[in-house]
């Protein structure tokens, strides 16, 4: 099935998504890699509301022109690096759509079921295509401390996809039956 949904998505919308579905999302997303996950888990207060956004595993290539940030290229980064943080992250921030590449492990799979979330795969390396779907850069956090790739960027996107639902909220993962070789 193909779905076009707005972020934030409600629980029923997330529940109907199944492994193999194709998804296009419209709304806000924030980028977070290893450093940002670590930092956000330790901080008591976050200057934006992650529950209203999708979480994007991405370290974008950005360009500042006349004081305004623009996205040059922004494909996904390898999600498995975030496996050690993600269950705690979903518990704390209630974001319900993760976008990444390469898949995640058992801890995340359980958390997706528990908190009703989906992990979706965006085509790795398709950075120019992704940047094309970003309508606006809404903000950046911890840029000085973390640097461009690791900072948290907030993007407003339109019809961002195709995302493949790779791990759903029912405990299924597209990666599991593929690894037998």
């Amino acid at each position, binding site marked *: 099935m193909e779905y076009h949904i707005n972020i934030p998505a409600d629980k029923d919308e997330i529940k109907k998504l199944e492994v*193999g579905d*194709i998804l296009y999302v419209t709304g806000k997303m924030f980028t977070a890699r290893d450093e940002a996950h670590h930092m956000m888990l330790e901080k008591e207060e976050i200057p934006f509301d992650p529950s209203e956004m999708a979480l994007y595993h*991405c*370290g*974008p*290539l950005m*360009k500042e022109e006349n004081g305004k940030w623009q996205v*040059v*290229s*922004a*494909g996904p*980064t*390898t999600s*498995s690096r975030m496996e050690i943080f993600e269950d705690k992250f979903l518990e704390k921030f209630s974001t319900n759509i993760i976008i990444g*590449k*390469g*898949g995640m492990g058992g801890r995340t799979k359980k958390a997706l079921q528990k908190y009703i979330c989906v992990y979706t*795969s965006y*085509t*790795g*390396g*398709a*950075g*120019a*295509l*992704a*940047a*094309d779907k970003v309508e606006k850069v809404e903000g950046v956090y911890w840029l000085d401390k973390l*640097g*461009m*790739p690791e900072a948290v960027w907030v993007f407003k996107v339109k019809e961002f996809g*195709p995302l*493949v639902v*790779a791990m759903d909220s029912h405990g299924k993962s*597209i*990666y599991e039956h*593929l*690894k*037998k*070789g």
Partner: protein
Amino acid sequence: MNLKNIEDGIVELIRKAETELPDDVVKSLEHAYEIEDGVAKTQIDAILKNIDLAKKSGRPMCQDTGIQTFFIEVGIDFSFINRLKDLMNNAVKKATLEVPLRPNTVDPFTGENHKDNTGDHLPYITWDFVDGNDVHITALPKGGGSENMSKLGMLKPGVGIEGVKDFVVEEMIKSAGNPCPPTVVGVGIGGGADLSLKLGKRALLRPVDDRHKDKNIAAVEEELIKRINASGIGPMGLGGKTTVLDVHVEKAHRHPASLPVGIAVQCWADRRAKMVIHSDGSWEVK
């Protein structure tokens, strides 16, 4: 001779590598599009659209513009050998702002980003010296996701080439979707630990679909392609027929007690570009 002109040429080399894929890679991806269906086809479709968009808009195809990696053949009669290293460094800094490139060089101790894609030992340059007065540079920007899937096996010589093949297939299956398949895999066999990895990386310079001139090695390459693709990992690890676009094998003689196998992995964005600099300072990017 105008050194700034050469520096601009090297910036163009980097720009070309980051924004346009070689025809052999595009052709291979187009073939993958033909033979895949379902989710796998959607991935190759996105990749091809992305390649097209990057080329037309002149922006890097992937946000991970990589570690700037160059293989340089210097003609020993080139007039400005002593300036080449500085030219490379300056061009990388300039390209970071102009292309632009993502600042990708981080100090492993402090975590501080050098912000210009240079740093200790970087850009990473392999120098060779040849006859003549031209300089040939190949740029191979190397992404982190695929580099993280590099492997070194110090196998027991008794396992032979069969053991080498099993090792490569097993490791590539373990890597699954992480290195952004369909990948190009470089395998270096023999030498010592470092040389096997170096040969693996050097093997990535060969065009996709280029078979080794040694028939026995070519047969090993073909077998590896077949076996890895039979895993069904597919584009982005989401399932499909195309897990590798190609496997290139290179060998060195080995120590009697050692059988090193170095695996270098390149994502579908098998970025390569070449340039030649003539002794009068003129240059061409190919």
